[in-house]
């Protein structure tokens, strides 16, 4: 730990129309929010000094987040509730922090620690129902493997490992909601939306819209226990 620096972990939401922002756009927006809040933030050393902050696993363009995290280092201890108050006042609508806590510098980084993502995927379409979507998904999950082509490269996912928990499928407001948990990693994470779109296609189910929200990201402990990073 750099002496005299305090590491603050902030949870925020990326919702509404801002689900269409890219990860980089979210990062810039959050950095500017911290600057506007006039927090005593630390500056990195080196060739081009900038605000010292670290961000959780990227959310793709189009995916909302209900509990995302970033760390920011402060040079002066300020009560977390006060920090939260000024951050909220400086936040753009739909990109709003709701929790702030200090964490020890020994705590692993967000990207290293957060390996579990729990998602909710809303599917709209005529005549959709939970049981057919459930069956379509199950058909793909039981094959045990899933691949996607991204930028000309094929990526394989071992579904037993990538989907560590049974999906829950329910009817809601004329559509269907799938709750799906996936394992994330540095070699690339399975995108729930891709898996679901593929399953629907394979079962000849047409969806008019698919909206994905990451409900939260979690740390996987020693005994496979999942917990929040704060």
């Amino acid at each position, binding site marked *: 730990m750099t002496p005299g620096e305090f590491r603050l972990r902030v949870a925020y939401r990326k919702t*509404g*129309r*801002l689900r*269409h*922002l*890219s990860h*980089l*756009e979210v990062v*810039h*927006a959050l*950095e*500017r*929010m*911290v*600057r*506007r809040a*006039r927090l005593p933030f630390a*500056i*990195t050393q080196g*060739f*081009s*000094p*900038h*605000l010292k902050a670290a961000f959780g696993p990227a959310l793709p*363009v*189009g995916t909302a987040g209900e509990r995302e995290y970033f760390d920011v280092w402060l040079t002066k201890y300020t009560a977390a509730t006060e920090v939260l108050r000024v951050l909220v006042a*400086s936040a*753009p*609508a*739909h990109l709003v922090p709701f929790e702030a806590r200090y964490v020890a510098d020994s705590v692993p980084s967000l990207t290293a620690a957060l390996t579990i993502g729990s998602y909710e995927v809303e599917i709209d379409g005529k005549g959709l129902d939970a049981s057919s979507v459930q069956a379509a998904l199950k058909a793909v999950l039981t094959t045990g493997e899933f691949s996607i082509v991204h930028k000309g490269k094929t990526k394989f996912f071992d579904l037993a490992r990538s989907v560590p928990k049974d999906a829950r499928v329910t009817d809601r407001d004329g559509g269907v909601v799938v709750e799906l948990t996936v394992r994330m990693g540095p070699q690339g994470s399975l995108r729930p939306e891709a898996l679901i779109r593929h399953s629907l296609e394979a079962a000849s189910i047409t969806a008019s*819209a698919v909206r994905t929200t990451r409900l939260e990201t979690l740390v996987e402990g020693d005994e496979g226990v999942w917990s929040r990073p704060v």
Partner: protein
Amino acid sequence: MTGASLWARVEPLLSRIERPARYLNSEWGSVHTQEAEYRAVFLYPDTYEIGQANQALGILYQQANAIDGVAAERAYLPWIDLIALMREEDVPLFSLESCLPVSQFDLFGITVPYELSYTSILEALDLAGIPLRAVNRSEEDPLVVGGGPCVYNPEPFAAFFDAILIGEGEEALGDIIAAHRQAKDESLDRASVLERLSQIPGVYVPSLYHESVNGDGLTSVLTPIGSTPAVVTKRVVASLSAYAAPTCPVVPFMDVVHDRYAVEVLRGCTRGCRFCQAGMVYRPVRERSADEIVGDVLDGLACTGYDEASLTSLSTADHSQIEEILRRLTRRLAGTGISVSLPSLRVDAFSVELARLVSAGKKSGLTFAPEAGTQRLRDVINKNVTEKDLIDTVRFAFEAGWRRLKLYFMIGLPTETDEDIRAIGQVVERVLVAAREVTPPAQRGAIRVGVSVSTFVPKVQTPFQWEPQITLEEVRRRQSVLRESMPRKGVDLHWHDADVSFLEGVMARGGREVADVVETAWRGGARFEAWTEQFRLSTWLAAFESCGVDPTLIANRDRDIEEPLPWDHLSAGVSRRYLQRERERAFSESTTPDCSFSGCTGCDVCGDLDVDIVLTGGERR
């Protein structure tokens, strides 16, 4: 105004296109007004990332929103992918803030930022469902008002606008809105509204001018109908201090051009370069004071959260208090990771000193514009820079640690010979030699000189407004002369596209007959032409052909000094007498000093417009 937000129809399209962040709004600093008696929307006729940082629109957005009962919103031209989907799904052009159809606003303001944006303006009007031509608009259509850098030769696009503001908008925008609201209260019809607007100083209403073509068919002139003023003179504000700079502008989510907090430190430039339209039409020089600038930068950074501030103007190093401003800012911003940038530098050691002051160890690159290769030609264009100035400045910069340099030159300037062109290569060679001499041997490999060469395009309201632009074939020939004379090692050579310069030249001086060509080219698929991959000269050549307009007679013809001109009914305040005198001085290779350093040289703008030079530090150095 009635109508419902189009958002529910726009959002589903966003997952099918590139860069949805262009369309999201709700950025920090955006203004959302639910109830308003009068609604204005301002369009930049290009994508969000190109137009967002436009400072003039930022000022107008703030000003209009500050008027009681008025709501102002922004609009940009969606990129081609979204336009295609919108046309498929029948979604019209929308404003960002309320996502309402642009056609439902009272005022549709469009900035005309460059000559190649005219077809994009037509794309926007069409996408909005507004008739392209002002004459075809009905009482329900918004008032379409133009403004911006291209208005000094408006005829190629005038037919598409109800009114065009010539000059600065700070005061005029309020006048236009007030007149329009008043006219609405009185339930005046469209024609009467336009007549009212034409009485506001600086407002040009194209439909109230009649076009007549000279016997030779070469020139068209415009004469007023009825009580309309014969000449519309630009609006200008006497002092920038009377208008608060926007210190809480919109902070975009996406990466945009000029993504930093920008403060206008001064307006106008009187160095008097004879090719430069900006230098003629934005006169006189008016500075903001050091206190205002430092205060605005600090407030603006605090409100936006940007980590970079830019001090913008046509020539920032000329500000009479620039050193004080930079010293105060670097002191106040020390340890915050915030940097200050200077967009324009003079060719002198003082400028390099300023750049060093703000560089904080980072030496990314310097840019200088000698414009021509020989002293003779630099005297013709009144670029008061000697080769010694340039070499000394380069030495100074490389001694100070810079390793990268960019130089701007032009070809096709009046009186240019092949000798002048070859001299550009020789100047670059001497720059390289000077740079190497003062750079430690181990670091010499890092030296890079970028040379950017554009083709001179004669512009209206400049001393060269009568000159022919060199032909396309001649551009290509001169480019090859230059290429042969340019040193290879350590130089990156860039050209401005010759076809683009040719079309710019036609738009820069064309008359009302060119409007048909613009519309035909747009119907032929022309739009987004500032994007190199979207520009096709062939579309335009076909359009000229089918409209029976010879573009070479507009761009490449030598005009008689007595010839009536299609822009004679507009004035930027600089007198024709002065322009003619400057032209004569150009051909006799005599220079004219900068009036902000050494006394009035008689361009007449101050007397004609009842304004004065404003130097907040008393005098310039």
